[in-house]
């Protein structure tokens, strides 16, 4: 199986120390976290982690089970990029005089949909949001013009076919056993299982 980019979405209780518990699941296996975002979710008291890693599907599936095993984790999903709508945000600090002087820079910024968020006499801070490639494209384009500082955020992602977490949460709030089922590829493949 090939490694590819997966986005893991984890719904959790908001508890001190949980970030560490989740992070060590990756570090223990020497897996690099490409990006990690923590945020509130649409439900009060439920937190959401968005984690991007480069791994095979098999590894990601096992990681999600390890994550779900943590007491404060409600649910972990993993998705490939085509199953997601996602964005990353970037800030670029550029000398103001260059923008004023060079028409080219201004055109570049417009082309990348950059928005000025702070304008000072000596520098201007622009913001773009989008996919990694676009953000990196603008950095490369700005570099020759004296880019002073750059920072990119972690990925935030929405799962396209997710109906939100409200329904799932109700299930978690009801008493054991939950009806949360774990799928297996052989379920329903009677023939494969029973040919001895």
């Amino acid at each position, binding site marked *: 199986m090939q490694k590819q980019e997966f986005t893991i979405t984890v719904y959790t209780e908001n508890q001190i120390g949980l970030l560490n*518990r989740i992070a060590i699941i990756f570090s*223990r296996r020497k897996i690099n976290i490409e990006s990690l975002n923590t945020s509130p979710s649409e439900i009060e008291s439920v937190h959401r982690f968005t984690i991007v890693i480069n791994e095979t599907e098999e590894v990601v*599936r096992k990681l999600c089970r*390890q994550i779900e*095993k943590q007491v404060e984790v409600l649910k972990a999903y993993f998705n490939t990029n085509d199953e997601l709508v996602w964005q990353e945000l970037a800030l670029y600090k550029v000398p103001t005089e260059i923008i004023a002087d060079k028409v080219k820079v201004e055109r570049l910024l417009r082309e990348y949909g950059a928005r000025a968020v702070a304008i000072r006499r000596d520098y201007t801070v622009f913001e773009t949001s989008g996919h990694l490639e676009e953000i990196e494209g603008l950095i490369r384009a700005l570099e020759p013009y004296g880019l002073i500082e750059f920072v990119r955020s972690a990925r935030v992602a929405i799962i396209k076919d997710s109906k939100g977490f409200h329904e799932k949460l109700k299930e978690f709030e009801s008493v054991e056993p939950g009806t949360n089922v774990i799928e297996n590829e052989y*379920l329903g493949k009677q023939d494969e*299982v029973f040919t*001895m």
Partner: protein
Amino acid sequence: MSTIELAAEKAKSVIQQVENISGGEAVMKALLCEKVNTIFGYPGGAIMPIYDALYDYQERLHHILVRHEQGAVHAAQGFARTSGKTGVVFATSGPGATNLVTGLADAMIDSTPVVCITGQVFAHLLGTDAFQETDVVNITTPVTKWNYQVTDASEIPAILAKAFYIARTGRPGPVLIDITKNAQLQKFDFTGYTPCTHIRSYRPKPYVRRKYIEQAAALINEAKKPFIIFGQGIILGKAEKEFREFIEKSGIPAAWTILGMSAIPTDHPLAVGMLGMHGNYGPNVLTNDCDVLIAVGMRFDDRVTGRLDKYAKQAKVIHLDIDPSEIDKNVKAMIPVWGDCKETLPLLTELVQKKTHPEWLQRFRDFQREEEKQCIEPEMKPSTDVLSMGEVIHQINELTKGEAIIVSDVGQHQMVACRYAQFKHSNSNITSGGLGTMGFALPAAIGAKFGAPARTVIAIIGDGGFQMTIQELGTIMQSKVNVKIVILNNEFLGMVRQWQELFHDRRYSFVDITSPDFVAVAKGYYIEGRSVSKRDELRNALSGMLDHQGPYLLEVKVGKENNVFPMVPQGCSVAEIRLK
């Protein structure tokens, strides 16, 4: 009475129930509500308010003062594993807490329910490098099922309720609660203790899917050469009876992992022995010959599977486990039966046909005969005057008739003990399986005795491992713990020596270990003892030990360079198991 009066009455009774107590006392009340009666611990500065509260509760909460905090966790593990209850540990902050780490790691990997309560510096000192401050919660995160730091006394009842619930439910494990000193001292309104029965984000048991049970049963009913391998899940799930009914109806041969051992009597007609690196010949070889492999409450440790890409490739695997993350982790399951085996096994038993597999079972017996000839006979009846470890275990079997609890340490003697010991009852084979912690047995035996006071507890320990937690002799002395200690002394770190002999051209690098006069050491602790090296003394020495009222240490000098066989060499498949 009017409703208003009723409400007032109710309010009054609530007020009457409220007590203003310290956090330390709340810990005692919580433990009593959890029906705890034994604590293994060691005091220190940051846990003094809890020990102060304990002073008034010592009649009901029996505290065993260990000699090292590692010993406290191992004792709590021994207690948990013989009693089926949760072990409880107290330790102070800093060095007290860091001394727990090995024990926690052991309890984590062997799924033992333990609740550790550690003292911590005052909350306002957290992060200041205060005296005896260590970041215990972060140090223990990878080796606990759950941990939490309490900084306010009012949290104590609910957090301890959660701790006990998490430790014992689902796949059990160790939980650590770190309580800052101010919270232990702080007075608060204690309104009673409510045991925890549900945590929103925690699913102790997965949902049982009938469809998988049906598929599993159909597969079992079709199988010609089905084979059951089982682990500690049966014991932890208290599903021994359900398991027996399952194997007896389906007539399938069953082999245990080291931690599954004793879940069924070792002489059960369908028992075919132990799996793994030093397990029995038949179950290892035939793992790679069966057509359906039914794994119950076990996790396919590498010591069980040997080389994974040559493990049971021909078999269709049915895996019953309570922990969803175990399914497909090492061995891919065709049919995953998620759930508590106490619930899933009866469902499966109902659907399987009553059968016997005499020819298939005979194949296990044939391998057994071969192993008997090549490994067991020479171990039981050595051709020299030098005693073997196997003889000692054999004599213990004859004397105890499989009724004893055997606690083994780690090394050759452990493998020999687990290969040859006979058990009639569950919860009887106590050993450090997943972590292989030398020094486990002596403290674990102490706990095992408190967990099962009516039973004989025999610790089998190597000369190396004994010296790792030798100080617990002090605990045995002080608390008058009636454990029988057998040191199998080969004057080597035997298991490592065996590997050096077999795989490192006999380059014996630092495995030659000198020991003190063990009997004299025991005597220093007022523990009776004896040392034997001759065959004609052995029986008498063992029965003397068993008949002795109180703790006893017996050193048996055994062959220095004996090896444990069979053996699946590392990196080989289970079918490549060597008899010599």
